[in-house]
């Protein structure tokens, strides 16, 4: 269908070329900041601080990335990468597990308080961490979870979006399957593990991509609760690498760190593109 429309209506020749040229120009403009960061991560500090800096990569790639990964500024970037990985995976997996369980309870059971809990989960949509910064910090501090992985993960783990997504999906699972399971005398959790979870595989994977990026890209929360550089995540740690006062920033190392900070999410998004787009569209419904 799509092809036919192009066949009939689309311009050919010059018009088509113009479209390609504009598209490539747009992409080049959008990529310029990333390219410049990459170039800066492969040259020496003097080449940057005497502007204009070169626009083509230099020969310091290995030196700069080694310096970033194993020395860093406050803490080796390898440590920050590990912290980010733990946080992103912890948030994604945690959200998926608790949402699968609560959606299963809401869809497949009638129990006291069901409607109340449903609305309670719904209301968390209206409470992003940005608007309850200070009191949430106090709660986490009270539990002694500052500078810990659990402090990074748990306050961000309740997700109305994921619960609704799974609820929506469970409602489309044919009733006959649950009926058959009941007739066979299968316990609810057996049904959950053998039927519901395997059927939700694609949804889980799509959601994982979105939630991994959400967790990886967190900034404000790690900034508040990780005062110990050893616990910094890479996204919030970059800003900490800038010197206070008039000292000159170590640009090659900072830009190498920026590139390292974007590689994992970019790999996830690009390699799981179809799932990513599906997750994006689903989670906004």
């Amino acid at each position, binding site marked *: 269908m799509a092809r036919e429309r192009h066949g009939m209506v689309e311009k050919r020749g010059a018009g088509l070329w113009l479209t390609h040229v504009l598209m490539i120009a747009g992409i080049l403009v959008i*990529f310029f900041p*990333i390219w*410049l960061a990459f170039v800066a991560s492969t040259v020496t500090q003097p080449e940057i601080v005497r502007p204009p800096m070169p626009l083509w990569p230099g020969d310091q790639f290995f030196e700069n990335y080694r310096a970033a990964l194993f020395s860093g500024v406050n803490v080796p970037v390898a440590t920050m990468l590990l912290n980010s990985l733990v946080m992103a995976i912890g948030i994604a997996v945690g959200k998926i597990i608790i949402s699968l369980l609560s959606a299963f309870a809401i869809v497949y*059971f009638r129990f006291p308080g069901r409607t109340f809990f449903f609305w309670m989960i719904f209301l*968390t949509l209206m409470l992003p961490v940005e608007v309850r910064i*200070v009191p949430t910090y106090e709660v986490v501090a009270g539990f002694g979870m500052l500078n810990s992985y659990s402090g990074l993960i748990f306050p961000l783990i309740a997700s109305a979006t994921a619960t609704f997504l799974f609820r929506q999906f469970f409602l489309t699972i044919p009733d006959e399957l649950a009926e058959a399971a009941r007739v066979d005398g299968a316990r609810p959790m057996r049904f959950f593990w053998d039927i519901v979870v395997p059927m939700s595989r694609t949804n889980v994977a799509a959601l994982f991509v979105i939630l991994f990026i959400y967790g990886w890209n967190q900034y404000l929360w790690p900034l508040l609760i990780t005062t110990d550089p050893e616990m910094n995540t890479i996204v919030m740690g970059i800003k900490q690498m800038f010197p206070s006062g008039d000292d000159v920033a170590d640009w090659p190392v900072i830009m190498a760190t920026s590139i390292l900070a974007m590689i994992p999410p970019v790999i996830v998004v690009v390699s799981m*593109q179809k799932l990513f787009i599906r997750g994006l569209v689903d989670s906004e419904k």
Partner: protein
Amino acid sequence: MEKRVTFRGWLLPLCLIAPQVIISAVFFFYPAGQAIWQSLFIPDPFGLSMQYVGLGNFEFLLSDKFYRASFVTTAIFSILVTLASMIPALFLAVLADRLIKGSGVYRTLLIWPYAVAPAVAGVLWLFMFNTRVGVVSWYLGQLGYDWNHVLNGGEAMGLVVVASAWGRISYNFLFFFAALQAVPRSVIEAAAIDGAHFWRRFFTIVLPLLSPTTFFLLVVNVVYSFFETFGVIHTITSGGPQQSTTILVYKVFSDGFVGQDLGSSSAQSVILLIVVGLLTVIQFKFVEKRVHY
């Protein structure tokens, strides 16, 4: 919609829903309640006792010219971010929709910036426009324009807007592209046979058909610019110069954590809660419509 077939028992479902309910209660509802409670008090200068002031914090806030300025800043910022991310995205989506070959490759490339965290985007743009080493600011200087976002509030705003909008172009592009692909072919062909040229077809037929997507993206992008751009502001301007880029979320942070003004920060949290509530209602009203569309 409800299931006809359900399992019996009430203990198991309560256990299943417990993790989510407990986490929501401890990390969402209790802190939100605290924010509302604290907004009614001011601590004494030594932090030893709290004095009840009723709506005093709110009265003070709403008459505070910095807070009111922050509202205006947030409005300007979110309108600019929304426009600066949606217009280029629509343009690129229209281009990609015209292409038969290669649109997959372009799409893959255009997804990239979405994966870049706002705070990292902030660092990339700060590097380009840095007053000492930035390439773009240096070339602007060669052209006779003296770029200095550290002193010039308008330039600071421009920079945080562009840095915030940049990654969102990917997101908006994906939604516009999907919507364009769903425009009925027959309508376009009929218009083409009637002799309507491309841009005429675009403005009279395609754009109206895109309106559900456009409205959805408007709401989502406003929400984004309100709540998810903190990283950009913190890395590039820290709210300055002279608070010219202090959006509401940044002000909650700077008053609460840097300024240690608990009463005011809590009152600001409560006002933000109301804003989020309104935005969520708008979003849901609209989503319902979209389902019936």
